[in-house]
């Protein structure tokens, strides 16, 4: 069993990592623990480095609309603090009550607001990293616009704890919206909803979020979110309803913008994965999901953001059936230039299916980056793409 350490300062993180590297221990950084099972199981885990005590909002420069926060702070706590001055981090990751800033960054978990405000890579403007050898390095800064030096905040985002421990991040913020509105549509078949989603993206509607929901045993749905002034929302609603003449408008489901979380609920065996596709290929991928899950015991559900990033769940059946379906889906995704990654799945599935897929010709470069920053393979060894 790995032992858990809870450093209370950046210096303590540095000391712990330096000692662990020296002793050849494998260290797994951990935030809220909500996504710790994503990716491949690390080859070794001697020490779990928890950021639970690094949980302060260090600065909210509301006049400048930036905030500096420690990695262990939960998303909800940060949002609560920012709301005091009418601001927010304009992103809506999974499980904000438990997910930490360090965790959402490392796993690059972006919600539907990404359609308007960009992904975490676009919101983070500075970062403090502790490397395996104990080096404490800052990159970026506290201003929104800054091109001095390499953009290491982006390197850290989505690195799944394999390059460095993120101890602090600086974000650009946005104002809380004046007013919000969500319109939901349904149709007996998915196709008209996918068409509508594309039409909306080509229209001049200024939606902030857009998602398609689909599944074997559920009515498909399309949710479109807006923010703005009352007058602006009214006129956008009119325009959207004109575009949506062929589908039925219904009330949005409860917690509509958190429906992605439901993909993690259900019974095992199951896998939860994510895929990327060109926006025009979303519909084809959903069709593929349906066709790959014809076995009677195999259920599927998906929530797809307009930009072409989606999450799906396959549930029931045996590991064999799941792996076969995954293989088919990956092939379909890759044929159209997209990707497919398995986040959660049983040990058995993960042993038989390469959860990350091929990173292409960049793998040797990824390996050299890892080699430079973590030459001893101390941090989450084996968790990421290509065994990194």
């Amino acid at each position: 069993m790995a032992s858990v350490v809870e450093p209370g300062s950046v210096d303590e993180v540095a000391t712990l990592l330096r000692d662990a590297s020296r002793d050849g221990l494998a260290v797994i950084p951990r935030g809220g623990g909500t996504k710790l099972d994503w990716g491949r199981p690390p080859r070794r885990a001697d020490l779990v480095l928890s950021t639970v005590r690094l949980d302060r909002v260090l600065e909210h420069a509301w006049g400048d609309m930036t905030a500096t926060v420690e990695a262990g702070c939960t998303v909800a706590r940060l949002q609560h603090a920012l709301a005091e001055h009418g601001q927010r981090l304009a992103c809506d990751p999974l499980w904000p009550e438990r997910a930490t800033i360090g965790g959402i960054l490392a796993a690059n978990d972006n919600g539907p607001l990404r359609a308007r405000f960009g992904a975490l890579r676009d919101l983070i403007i500075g970062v403090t990293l502790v490397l395996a050898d104990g080096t404490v390095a800052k990159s970026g800064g506290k201003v929104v616009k800054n091109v001095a030096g390499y953009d290491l905040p982006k390197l850290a985002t989505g690195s799944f704890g394999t390059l460095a421990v993120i101890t602090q991040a600086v974000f650009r913020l946005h104002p809380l919206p004046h007013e919000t509105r969500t319109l939901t549509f349904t149709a007996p078949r998915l196709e008209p909803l996918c068409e509508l989603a594309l039409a909306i993206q080509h229209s001049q509607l200024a939606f902030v979020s857009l998602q398609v929901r689909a599944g074997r045993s559920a009515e498909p749905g399309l949710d479109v979110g807006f923010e703005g002034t009352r007058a602006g929302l009214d006129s956008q609603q009119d325009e959207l309803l004109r575009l949506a003449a062929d589908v039925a408008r219904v009330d949005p489901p409860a917690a509509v913008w958190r429906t992605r979380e439901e993909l993690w609920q259900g019974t095992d065996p199951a896998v939860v994965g994510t895929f990327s596709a060109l926006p025009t290929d979303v519909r084809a991928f959903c069709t593929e999901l349906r066709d790959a899950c014809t076995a009677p015991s195999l259920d599927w559900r998906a929530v797809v953001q307009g930009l072409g990033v989606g999450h799906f769940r396959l549930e029931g059946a045996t590991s064999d059936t799941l792996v076969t379906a995954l293989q088919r889906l990956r092939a379909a995704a890759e044929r159209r230039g997209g990707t497919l990654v398995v986040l959660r799945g049983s040990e058995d599935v993960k042993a038989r299916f390469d959860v990350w897929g091929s990173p292409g010709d960049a793998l040797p470069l990824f390996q050299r980056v890892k080699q430079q920053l973590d030459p001893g393979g101390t941090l989450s060894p084996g968790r990421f793409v290509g065994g990194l």
Partner: protein
Amino acid sequence: MDTRILDRFRAIVGGDGLLTEPEQLRTYECDGLTNFRVLPSAVVLPTSTEQVQAVVRVCHEARIPFVARGSGTGLSGGALPIEHGIVISLTRMNRILEVDISNARVVVEPGVLNLSVTQAVWPHYFYAPDPSSQQVCSIGGNVAENSGGAHCLKYGFTTTHVLGLEVVLPDGSLVHLGGPTLDRPGYDLCGVFVGSEGTLGIATKVILRVVRRPALIQTLLAAFHSTNEAGAAVSGIIAAGVLPAAIEMMDNLAIRAAEAAVHPNYPDCGGLLLVELDGPAAEVAALMVQVRAICTSCGAWEIRLAQSEEERAAVWKGRKAAFAAMGRISPNYIVQDGVIPRTALPEVMSEIERLSGQAGLRVANVFHAGDGNLHPLVLYDARIEGQEGRAERLAFSILELCVKAGGSITGEHGVGEEKKAFMPVMFAEPDLDTMQRVRCAFDPERLSNPTKVFPRPRLCAEKTGPYQPHPLETAGIAQLF
């Protein structure tokens, strides 16, 4: 340069793709920052990725440093040649390879000009990052500098709009970073490459995201007595939760220069604001009422609203020509680029005024005010003994001021040659060393624009490990700064 090497280059790019005559090379001796000049040994002009790879392989084998060059409009000496090195000019790789409107994506070669991308997707879409040099600068240069522009406040910088890259690494191998779809598994090296100023390799293909044009665009011009008043209006607008497409500010000297150069018919005032709102018509109309009210309450004594395409173009003309306009009021000038937290504007402005008085030199100010990006223009006369030196020192002390205020030494022009000595003002040694470790992963032999960005190169063969002083430093021979 060894003629056998030149022969090899010629065999790759053909006779008309290789320049070696001093008068030809002269064109490439500097970029937009003309006070640094170095004559390269040769310039090669490849027309394909394969040619770039082949040229880079020769460089790699013979250990010849190379500098990629787009249009040469950079303002920090990024494309400044390296002595005994070559320049690889990408201007002949200027094809738009693919326009996929239904997915809002465009694939281009690096030599394509910024404005050409917008032209390719007009009238329904546009390419959002719009440096003032957009008619002449290249996408490759934009990628390398992570260029900004007036509309980045709302739409983000170049990096937000680059989805994927094909890159020739400094050993000649080819990699694909990012790609046509989002969130591809692996490290975000596309994000690292953007803004790396030519030090990590050469981009030979770029997948760009283009943006739907909004239903309505309106530009408000407001005249204030001072930049402080105008600055207060900027803070007021942002605090009210309005995110304009652009907020630009000019001070009186900049206004007068623009007036002399392109006659935009700006009011003669102490501080001028341009506020552009875009989006659905009803939304823009509602927010414009707020913006007007905020400007008035902060002391605006004249407000004009440009609504048609022509009126807007006229309003922007003066701002976009602001740098070049300095030539009308001063024989020489330095364009500086620094960033401050927006709230520090009043203090920083009065400090700039003090420094300018102390140096006996005029400073005109043009800002991307919404994101605190200052472009102080230090005016001087090179014919007057000592003025140039004083101007340089003044420009640098303004940068120090920016860092002290919690900002950055560059918001969009890059570090390049000009500001590398300033990196330690902003970053500690372990910070820079960590960046250089990333550089070592891409370019262990230090061939790709090797002398730029960092004040001191890291020897990649050095054992990676916590920062240790360079042997020369410990011997007291070299000082970091």
